[in-house]
């Protein structure tokens, strides 16, 4: 018996890293899962690796695009008849720079990817969940949703913004059977962090990727990175029926980094 038997989940950015770990944890708990990613080939490879063909689908598209996020909700309902859990997980930093050197294009990308994507997905999911009076919306936010570092202003601003959106929406639907929560991980060495890390380190004025890891882990109590599995365990809990009274929560998975 799984904690999510019969539930249907959709996850933006679910082919690797945090989203992938959440997908696999949900599948272990009995859910059906539609994952999303930009690259069709990588998506199909992820499905093959996961190896649960009857309960998994892939929906290709860029999570920074409205059509993708809304299409993902439709795809889940088409494939499995309903949507119970929406995980708005995709997000990140590209071509970051200090505010004085930030381009409009980069700023807009961060807003579309980290914030608008969450709004689009939340709105569409709620339109399906409200009539059913049941649902779980989880947003992968970040410690940067509460605290800030130099050199990644777009990421900081948009992660703060999604936390505001989560709190507001949680209050809007608080008396329904829908909960809306943010999960705030500390730094995790995901594929995306490895690939964009050197560039981000430069934007933060640090000499190397390793130095950036040190900056993050040094602020924690555990003095090391978090793991995708730690985030997935919290996601399973919040997605379960038992978590019906936890909403509007900024759930930390940060090894003791955030001061509040």
């Amino acid at each position, binding site marked *: 018996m799984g904690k999510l038997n019969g539930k249907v989940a959709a996850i933006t950015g679910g082919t690797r890293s945090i989203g992938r770990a959440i997908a696999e944890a949900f599948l272990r708990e009995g859910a059906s899962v539609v994952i999303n990613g930009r690259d069709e080939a990588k998506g199909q490879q992820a499905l093959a690796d996961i190896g649960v063909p009857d309960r998994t689908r892939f929906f290709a598209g860029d999570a920074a695009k409205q059509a993708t996020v809304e299409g993902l909700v439709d795809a889940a309902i088409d494939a499995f008849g309903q949507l119970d859990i929406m995980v708005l997980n995709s997000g990140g930093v590209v071509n970051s720079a200090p505010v004085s050197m930030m381009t409009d294009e980069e700023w807009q990308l961060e807003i579309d990817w980290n914030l608008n994507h969450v709004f689009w997905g939340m709105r569409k999911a709620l339109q399906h969940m409200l009539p059913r009076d049941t649902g779980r919306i989880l947003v992968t936010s970040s410690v940067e949703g509460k605290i800030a570092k130099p050199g990644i202003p777009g990421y900081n601003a948009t992660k703060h913004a999604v936390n505001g959106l989560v709190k507001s929406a949680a209050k809007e639907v608080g008396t329904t059977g829908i909960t809306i929560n943010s999960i705030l991980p500390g730094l995790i060495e995901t594929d995306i962090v490895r690939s964009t890390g050197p560039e981000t380190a430069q934007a933060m004025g640090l000499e190397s990727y390793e130095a950036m890891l040190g900056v993050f882990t040094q602020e924690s109590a555990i003095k090391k990175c*978090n793991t995708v599995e730690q985030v997935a365990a919290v996601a399973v809990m919040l997605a379960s029926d038992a978590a019906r009274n936890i909403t509007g929560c900024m759930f930390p998975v940060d090894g003791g980094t955030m001061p509040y």
Partner: protein
Amino acid sequence: MGELDGRVAAITGGTRGIGRAIAEAFLRDGAQVVVSGRDAAKGQRAIDEIDAGDRVHFVQGDAAVRADCDRLIDETVARYGRIDILVNNAGGSANNAPVVDLTDEAMDYALHLNLWSTFWCSRRALAHMIPQQWGRIINISSLEGKVGKPGIAVYVTAKHAVNGLTKSMAHEVGTLGITVNSLCPGAIETDMMKEEGTKAAASMGMAYEDLLAWFSSESAIKRLNEVEDVALVASLLASDAGAGITGSLISIDGGTSPY
């Protein structure tokens, strides 16, 4: 197969309310559990009701007394060979009043029951957890550990202090495989709430029902929380998967706390 197989937990004030729900959740997950309480008869009844054989044990003791806190940890280790998880759950306040009318005794009692008890039990338990490089300390704080309400200043003050202790301890032992967290539940209608909530409401010049309605109205869910909500999160923090969560003040309040 449970996620707490082989783990040993001690829970202060575990015979009823939140502590009891956590004890039952830990037992379901495979742990061995020691619960404490002031009243031996109530403790025995709780053990009989829980019905988990030799995997559960009661130690009579008052969490506001240092010797009783030390003995709870010592008896846990004596009986089950180790201590992996400490839940500092006992807490509360009495003789609540607006600060202008508050007695020294009311403040002293709340600090002993909530703060000193957490300090005493944690200090004793850490002496075992540090050498074994594994441990979980879960402090049952409150929404009132983050925000204030009039008329219950002793409770608010003590729970804020517990949250400060949580953060400091988490940083002290962060690299040793030990996590320390506070759970901050919203109002739950436990036996204790029925008893002390009625008096606290009276001290604020309101009916008990109005006090509960006030708590509910501040939440997103517009209802009270339940003890099972807290047990759910406690189980996660106590598990291996909780290793990356420490120094956190986790709201279990139906969307009440502003942060």
